[in-house]
Each structure stands twice: as structure tokens, then as C-alpha cells.
């Protein structure tokens, strides 16, 4: 994809902006948080929770892609989980067919997914956002049909690489430096951090400004000389690329892939958690990952059926769209501040409102 090459060229041209005090604090917080997650967290978790948090990191990347698409350009894709399944297929095929190093395979599945996503997205993008939503929903259905017929590669020969029998010993390999679960969690978090960095660079640089213009008013952006279709395409391609990389991570995480991992309804659930997490901040993607992978695990632990969560997510979509378009990332600190004021008001001491880490 030429867009990816152009990105880095454009990013280089943008001078690094001077960080002010607030941003420096924020950067420090992020670094500390990242160090905690990479170094300490895996030590504290037991086996089950290590895999849960690996999934959280992977789905955060997927959510990041959809969040950028929705929050920056106002487009909606209803097929991101199906795209993730496709990416996982591509990655698994590459793992079995080649001896390429792990990061190269991730990059490869990212790029191939980008191309496939772009092929589907382009005709719809030239029309309106509603058409992209519809065609991606149909794409989700179509990918499910194809994968059900072809199945995931499990070390067989031929283009499909699927063996009906003897599927026991062919696991999708992990990077040599991260073959254990704990090491793989660290590896995943670091890859996720790189993906967030790529997204941040996009948002801060020229594409981010073009997206902001498109979101405000497409006609105004057009009048200002922004190539609307190109930048919409770019956002969709970036979302596909992120999903592609996540697909590679997912393939290696589970070792063997099954179509039941990617139900069509998950694409809708992803949309819900991304909206609830908040689409105007990159943190929203982390929240979305937690909502989608961590909460069900917690409920499972308590013996509560995860279907309740689907209902909550559905209500969440309506609530976010009606009252709080910025999502939990903004709403939670605001509500906490309100609560704090309320409590201090009730206590009658006139304490200043509590401040929850508003980022």
C-alpha cells in the first residue's frame, strides 16, 4: 500500500512539537503505566488471567482501528471482527508456509489485510458512510461463509493449508523470545504500544488534521482542498492494518484457530464497546479492549452468563449516542467529579471536587 509509505514520509516532515508541562506529565504517566504492564503485571497474574490480558491487548488494537475510523472520520465499519478473522487466517497461512521472523509475518498480515479491506471499502467510500457500514456488515457475513468452508490453516498443504485429520501437533508458532504465555503477554503489549504510537503519529500529523476537517464538514474539507476520499480511504486502511497486525497476534496466541472464535455478532459488540470506551481518545480503545475481553472473563469467574453483558452493551450504545458521545473515557471522570462535588456538598465542608485522573 503506497499510503503506508507516504505516512512515514509525511510524519518525518512534521517537526516534533514541543511538549508542554501537561503533556510531559501525561507522557511520563504513560511510560510508567506501560512499564508496569510489561514488567510487573505478568508476574502478578495467574495463568488464566495472563491469557485474558493478552486478549485485552489484542482487542485493544482492533478497537483502536475502529475508534480512529469512527472518531476521526465519522465512518462506521460493522465487519472488523470478520476482518480480524481474515487477518488471522492470513497470518496462520504465512506462519505455516514460511519461516519468516514473527514481526515480518505480523507486518505481512497487516499489509495484506489492508489491501483486502481497501478493495472492499473503496467503492462504498465514494458514496456515503451508510453504504460503508452496510457493505462491511455484508463483508462480515461473507467472510464467515468463506472461513466456514475453507477453515483455518493447521499445517496442511496447498493454498488453504487445512488438514481434516491429524490436527493435534501443528500449532501456530510464537516468536522465539516469547514462547511462554507470560513472555507472549509482554510481547503483545509492546506490539500494541507500537500500534498506539503509529495511531498517535497519524492523529497528530497531517492525516489527523485532514480527518478532523472531514469530521466537521465534508464539504468544507473538500473546499479547503482536502482529498476527502483519499483520507477516508487512509483511515479505513489504517484500521485494516491495525486489525491485520492484531490478527497475527491472535493467531499465535491461540495456536489453533476456529471459526467459532469470530461470530458475526462480535463485530457489533466491538462497535458497542468502542463507542462506550470513547472514540475521541486513544485511551477509549484500551477501555474497549477491557470491556470486550476482561469483563466477560470476570463474569465467567463469578458464574454469571456473559449474555447479560450483551444487553448492557446494547443499552450502552443507545446511552452513548443519546447523551455522552465522548464515551466512558470522558464520562467517567466527569461523573466522578460530579459525585465528588455532591459528596462534598452533602458533607457541607466545601471540599474541592475530587479529581480522578482526567486524561
Amino acid at each position, binding site marked *: 500500500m503506497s499510503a503506508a509509505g507516504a505516512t512515514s514520509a509525511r510524519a518525518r516532515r512534521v517537526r516534533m512539537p514541543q511538549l508542554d508541562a501537561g503533556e510531559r506529565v501525561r507522557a511520563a504517566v504513560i511510560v510508567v503505566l506501560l512499564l508496569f504492564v510489561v514488567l510487573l503485571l505478568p508476574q502478578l497474574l495467574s495463568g488464566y488471567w495472563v491469557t485474558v490480558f493478552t486478549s485485552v491487548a489484542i482487542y485493544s488494537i482492533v478497537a483502536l482501528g475502529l475508534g480512529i475510523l469512527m472518531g476521526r472520520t465519522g465512518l462506521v465499519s460493522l465487519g472488523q471482527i470478520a476482518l480480524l478473522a481474515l487477518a488471522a487466517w492470513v497470518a496462520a497461512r504465512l506462519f505455516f508456509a514460511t519461516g519468516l521472523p514473527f514481526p515480518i509475518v505480523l507486518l505481512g498480515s497487516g499489509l495484506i489485510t489492508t489491501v483486502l479491506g481497501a478493495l472492499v471499502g473503496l467503492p462504498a467510500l465514494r458514496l456515503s*458512510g451508510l453504504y460503508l457500514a*452496510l457493505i462491511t456488515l*455484508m463483508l462480515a457475513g461473507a467472510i464467515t461463509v468463506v472461513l466456514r468452508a475453507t477453515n483455518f490453516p493447521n499445517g496442511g498443504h496447498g493454498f488453504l493449508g487445512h488438514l481434516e485429520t491429524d490436527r493435534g501437533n501443528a500449532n501456530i508458532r510464537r516468536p522465539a523470545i516469547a514462547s511462554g504465555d507470560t513472555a507472549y503477554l509482554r510481547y503483545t503489549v509492546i506490539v500494541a504500544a507500537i500500534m498506539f504510537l503509529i495511531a498517535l503519529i497519524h492523529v497528530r500529523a497531517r492525516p489527523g488534521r485532514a480527518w478532523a476537517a472531514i469530521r466537521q464538514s465534508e464539504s468544507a474539507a473538500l473546499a479547503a482542498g482536502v482529498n476527502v476520499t483519499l483520507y477516508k480511504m487512509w483511515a479505513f486502511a489504517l484500521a485494516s492494518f491495525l486489525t491485520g497486525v492484531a490478527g497475527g497476534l491472535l493467531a499465535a496466541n491461540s495456536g489453533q484457530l476456529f471459526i467459532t472464535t469470530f461470530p458475526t455478532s462480535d463485530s*457489533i459488540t466491538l462497535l458497542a464497546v468502542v463507542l462506550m470506551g470513547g472514540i475521541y481518545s486513544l485511551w477509549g480503545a484500551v477501555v474497549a479492549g477491557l470491556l470486550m475481553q476482561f469483563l466477560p472473563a470476570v463474569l465467567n469467574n463469578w458464574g454469571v452468563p456473559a449474555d447479560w453483558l450483551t444487553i448492557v452493551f446494547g443499552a450502552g450504545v443507545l446511552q452513548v449516542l443519546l447523551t455522552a458521545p465522548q464515551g466512558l473515557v470522558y464520562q467517567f471522570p466527569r461523573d466522578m467529579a460530579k459525585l465528588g462535588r455532591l459528596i462534598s456538598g452533602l458533607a457541607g465542608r466545601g471540599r474541592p471536587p475530587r479529581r480522578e485522573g482526567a486524561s
Partner: protein
Amino acid sequence: MPSLEDFKPFVVTGLALGGVYALSGVGMVVLYRATGVLNLAFGAVGAMGALLAWQLINVNSWAQGPAFLVCVLFGGAVTLLYGVLFGPPLSGRDPLVKATATLGLALILLGIMDLVWSDKARSMILPTSNHGFEVSDVFVNWTEVIALGFALAVMTVTALFLRFTKTGTAMRALANDREITATLGVPVRRVEAAAWLGSGLVSGASGLLLSNLVGLDAATLTFLVISSLAATLIGRLRSITVTFIAGIVIGLVNALVTPIVSISQYRDMTPFVLATIALLVLSGRRGSALAGRAG
């Protein structure tokens, strides 16, 4: 290559399925034109109605007739309730936001269905499926006849309704320009409520028919909406006639591919493939036809 004889039975199933896709498609287009909302929960509402009817018949031992009526009414009631509660506050937003909001309803219904009815496989057999007649060695049951006939009837009635009644004219006016229509004194909310109710009743009826023709499964029925959506997309979310024909064609192609072994297992991709072709054609001559509601 299978002989012509092999295709015959699939013409019947294709026409029946296509009829229901067309029916749902028409229901969605009418709602979209009147309110600007593309109801992506259409399939979920129908699915839940059908499951409810199953519950009433098999657990509460109701007679079939009232249970089927409950299914259709459930579709109308839920859709109307959603429209009254969430239609007005979202009316000024982008069509994409309105469509996304209906996914909230779809998720709520999916969650409830998974909670209540996910324990075992169920099936729904309408009494009309047991009787039928033969047309050149192919058995046609009455459900299949009803599916196509009902779809045709609904399309005709809808077209006449939009053309000749006061509410229908108001709906068409709303589709053209909401603000001006409101200024002219059309009771916007009431007309929209009528559209929600009508579309909801259609979703209940399609859910019931599909639960017989395809199978009674929450996820399957919910995502069968994809076929109808493809039909509405081909009809550019405006034309009832094109949507209807597209629905029939999608159903037919989908069924007729079945005996061709090499691509049989990919036949459910039909809506996607046909919609993509339509999109390619549409985007080739954009601007002319899509300046209205869809933009």
C-alpha cells in the same frame, strides 16, 4: 454441471426466500424514507418474535394462531416503542448515527435471546408447510406460496398507500424534506410512528416466515437481515420496486447455486457479491442519484 432438472426444486425455495428478503427490504426502505432510520435490528426483532411464538406454543401450549399473532404484534410493538423513545432525540443526527443506534436495540434483543433460548435447537413449522401441491414434479408447500404472495401483497399495498393516502403522502414528503414538511403542519411524530409500527409488523411477519423457511435460531435470523440489506442497498435505499426485485433475485441466486457443487458452500455470499457489484455501478455514476437522503 447438474442438469436443468436439478435446479427445479431450488426455484421454489429461492422464490420463497427471496419473497421474504424482498418483504423485509420493503419494510426497511419505507421506514428509512419516512424517518431516516435504517433499522439494523430488523432481523433481531423478527427473530425474537418467532422465539416468543415458539415459547407460547411449546411451553405455554397456546394455539398456533394467537401465538403467530403475538409474534407479528411483538415486532410492531418493540419497533414502535424504539421509534417513539429514540426516534425524536436522534432525529437531527446523521443517518449513520441513527443506524448505529438501532444496533443497540439489536444487541439488547440478541442478549435476551441468548439468555433465554440458547440451551437447545428449536424448530418452527407453520401448519401451511404440511400441505401443498405439485408443479411439474416439484412439491410446493403453502408457506412458500404465502411468503411470495404476502411479499407481493405488502409491496403493492405499500406502494398504493404511499401514493393515495394522506399519511402515505406525508411519509413521502418527510422523505423529501423533514423541515419543510414539519413547517407545513404535518404531524411529523405521528406519521413517523405509523412508519415504525408498519415496519415493525412486517419485521414480525418476516421473522415468523423465515423461522419456518430457514430455521429458528437467534443469530441466524438476526443476520439474515444482511440479505435484505443488500436488497435495500441495490434499491439505493429509496426504490421500493427495485428493492423488491433485488430481494427476489438474491433469494433465487442463493438457492439456484445450491446444486452446483464447486460453489455450493459459498452460496450465502450472494448478498455481498450482488451488493458489491451494485456499489461498483453506483459509485461509477455517483452524484446524480445519491444526492438525497443517502448523503
